[in-house]
C-alpha cells in the first residue's frame, strides 16, 4: 500500500496553492521592473520612432534634472512635517481615550471617519473647505480676524504646503490614533502602576516602560505612513495638481507628468528605477534601525 505522504497530489499541494499568487506578483511586480530596466537604457519616447540603445544616458540625465530633485525635496518636506505631527497628535489622542469614559466608542467611531474616505475625496473635500470665496475656513478665520479673509490656499505659494499638510494630517492622524490606542491598551497595566508607585514622572514612564512596549507597533505604523507619504499623489492631485507652477510637485506627480504628459518613456523608466532604489535603501535602513528585523 502506498503511503499518503508519497501521494503525488499531496506532495505538490504546497506549490499548487502558492503558484497563482506568485505568478500574479511576478507579472505585476517583477515584469514591469525588468521591462523598465531594459527601456531605461534605450531612447524611447512617444514623439518619434527612435528606439536605439542609449546606455546610461537617461541615468546621467537624472542628475542634471533640477525639477526631479526639487520634487524629491517637496516629497521629503511633506513627509518630514506631516509624519511627526500625525504621530504626536495620534499619540495624544490615544492617551485621551485610553481610560474608559462613557460614550468612548462613539467618539472613536466618529474620529475614524476621515481615514475611511478615499484620499481623492479627502483632497476634494479640502478643496471645497479652502475655497477662497465660498469655503468655510476663510469664513471662520474671518471671525477671528474681525474682517473678511480672502486667502488663496491652493494658489498662494506660502499657503499651498500648509493646505496639503492640513489635509494629510486630517485624514491620517485617526489612523495613527487607532493603531496607537490598540497598542497602548495592550501595555501591561501593572507595569505602569509599578512605575507610578516608584515615583516615575509621566515622561519617564513613557520613555522606559510604555514606549518600549508599543514600539514594535509604532515602528510599523511609522513605516507604513512614511511609505504612503513618500508616494503621495491623490491629495495633491485634488488640491494643487503640483502647482502653483511646480511648487508642490512630488516625486509621484512628477513621474506621472513625465510618463503621461511628456511621454518620455525611457526617462520615466529611469525615474521609476531611481524611486525604487531610494525606497529599497531607506526601507532596509529603517527596518534595521527600528529593530524590526526579527
Amino acid at each position: 500500500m502506498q503511503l499518503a505522504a508519497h501521494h503525488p497530489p499531496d506532495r505538490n499541494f504546497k506549490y499548487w496553492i502558492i503558484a497563482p499568487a506568485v505568478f500574479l506578483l511576478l507579472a505585476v511586480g517583477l515584469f514591469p521592473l525588468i521591462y523598465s530596466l531594459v527601456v531605461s537604457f534605450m531612447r524611447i519616447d512617444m514623439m518619434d520612432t527612435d528606439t536605439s540603445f542609449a546606455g546610461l544616458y537617461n541615468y546621467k540625465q537624472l542628475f542634471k534634472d533640477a525639477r526631479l530633485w526639487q520634487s524629491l525635496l517637496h516629497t521629503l518636506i511633506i513627509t518630514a512635517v506631516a509624519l511627526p505631527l500625525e504621530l504626536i497628535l495620534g499619540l495624544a489622542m490615544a492617551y485621551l481615550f485610553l481610560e474608559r469614559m462613557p460614550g468612548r466608542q462613539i467618539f472613536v467611531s466618529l474620529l475614524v471617519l476621515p481615514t475611511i474616505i478615499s484620499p481623492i475625496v479627502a483632497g476634494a473635500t479640502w478643496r471645497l473647505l479652502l475655497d477662497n470665496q465660498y469655503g468655510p475656513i476663510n469664513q471662520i478665520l474671518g471671525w477671528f480676524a474681525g474682517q473678511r479673509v480672502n486667502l488663496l490656499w491652493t494658489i498662494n505659494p506660502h499657503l499651498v504646503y500648509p493646505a496639503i499638510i492640513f489635509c494629510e494630517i486630517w485624514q491620517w492622524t485617526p489612523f495613527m490614533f487607532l493603531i496607537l490606542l490598540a497598542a497602548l491598551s495592550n501595555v501591561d497595566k501593572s507595569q505602569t502602576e509599578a512605575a507610578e508607585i516608584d515615583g516615575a514622572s509621566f515622561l519617564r514612564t513613557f520613555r522606559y516602560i510604555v514606549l518600549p512596549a508599543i514600539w514594535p507597533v509604532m515602528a510599523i505604523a511609522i513605516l507604513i505612513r512614511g511609505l504612503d507619504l513618500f508616494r503621495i499623489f491623490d491629495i495633491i492631485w485634488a488640491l494643487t495638481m503640483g502647482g502653483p507652477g511646480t511648487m508642490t510637485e512630488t516625486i509621484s506627480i512628477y513621474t506621472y507628468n513625465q510618463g503621461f504628459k511628456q511621454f518620455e518613456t525611457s526617462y520615466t523608466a529611469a525615474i521609476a528605477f531611481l524611486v525604487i532604489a531610494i525606497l529599497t535603501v531607506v526601507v532596509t535602513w529603517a527596518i534595521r534601525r527600528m529593530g524590526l528585523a526579527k
Partner: protein
Amino acid sequence: MSDLKITKLNKHYGAFHAVKGIDLEVPSGEFTVLVGPSGCGKSTLLRTIAGLEEASSGTVEIGGQDVTWARPRDRNIAMVFQNYALYPYLNVKDNIAFGLRSRKVAEAEVEKRVKRAAEMLGIAHLLARFPRELSGGQRQRVAIGRAIVRDAILYLFDEPLSNLDAQLRDDMRVEIKRLHQELGRTMIYVTHDQIEAMTLADRIVLLRDGLIEQQGAPLDLFERPKTRFVAGFLGSPKMNFIPATLTETGVALSDGTALELPGRRGLKAGQAVVLGLRPQYISMAGQALAPGHARVPVTIELVQPTGSRVQATMPLGGASIIAELAAHDVSRPGERTAIDIDMTRAVIIDPQSEQVI
C-alpha cells in the same frame, strides 16, 4: 504611632460595592496580612491604599498624613505586584534602581542600595540579566528587591506568591518573613491563602464581602474565632462542623452522643447549634482521659497520610469529620476505635447569626 490609618473607606465600581466602610489602623513595623476569599475586597483595599484606585469616600492616612487624594508617587510606598510587573526592557539592576532614579537619588547611593538589596535577596549575580532570562522565583526576588530598595513608609504586597509553584512558595515565604525581621518595616500583604496568612502575619485582617470579619494575632483568630466564617477559613484541614443541641452542661449530637463543655455556664438548653472541632484537637484515645477531653467511639473510614501526621475521616453525629492524628497511632480503615476530643477548644456557633457563642 500608626503608619496607616483608614477611616470609613468605601469603594464603589458602578453598582458594585467592593469596600464597605472599612476602619483599619496598622502600627509601625507590623506585618499585616489582608486575607479572605476572592472577591472579598482585599485587593481593592490594597490598591486604594496605594492610590491606584480612588476612594469613593473615607480617608487614608499614611505616616500621619492624609493621602486620600494624593497620587501613588506622593504616598511614599513601595509595592510588589502579583505578576511581578518587572519592566521587560530594563535589566535587573535598572529594574531595582528605577524607583530610586525616578526620585533623583544620587547615583552612588543608588549603586550602594541596589547592591545591598540584591545581596540580601541572593540575586547579586543576576544584575545584568533581563527579566525574560529569569526563572519565576528569580523574578519574584527582583520584584521584592525593587520594593525593599526604596525607603518607603509602607511596603505593599499583592498576592506576590500566587504565581509560584508549591516548593518555591514555601521558600519565598520564609524569605519574606526574614526580610521583615531584618528590615523592621511596616508591611501589608494580601493573600487568599490562609497558610501564608497564618505563618507571615503579626496580625491578620480577615475580610469578607467588603467588610472586616475579624482582626487580630494569627493564633487569636485560630483559637478564638468570632464567626463561623473565620473558624472555617483559617486552619488546614478545615474545622469540622457538626449540628448539635445545647444541654445544661454541654452539647448533644444527633446520634445521642453527649459531650461536656468544661467551664461553660448559662447555656440555653435545647437551642440548636453547630459544634466546631479543629482536626488538630482530636487525638487517638490514650491511656488516661486528659482533663477537659471527651472520649467517643468511632469507625475510621479513610486515612490520608501526610508524613508524620495522618488525616483520618470518620462519621460522627451525622457528619463526616476529619481528625489529624499522629501517624503511628492510626489503625486500618474500617476498624472500630475511640478518639479523644479537646472540648476546651471546641467552638459553639449559633446557626442563625453564624456568630460564635
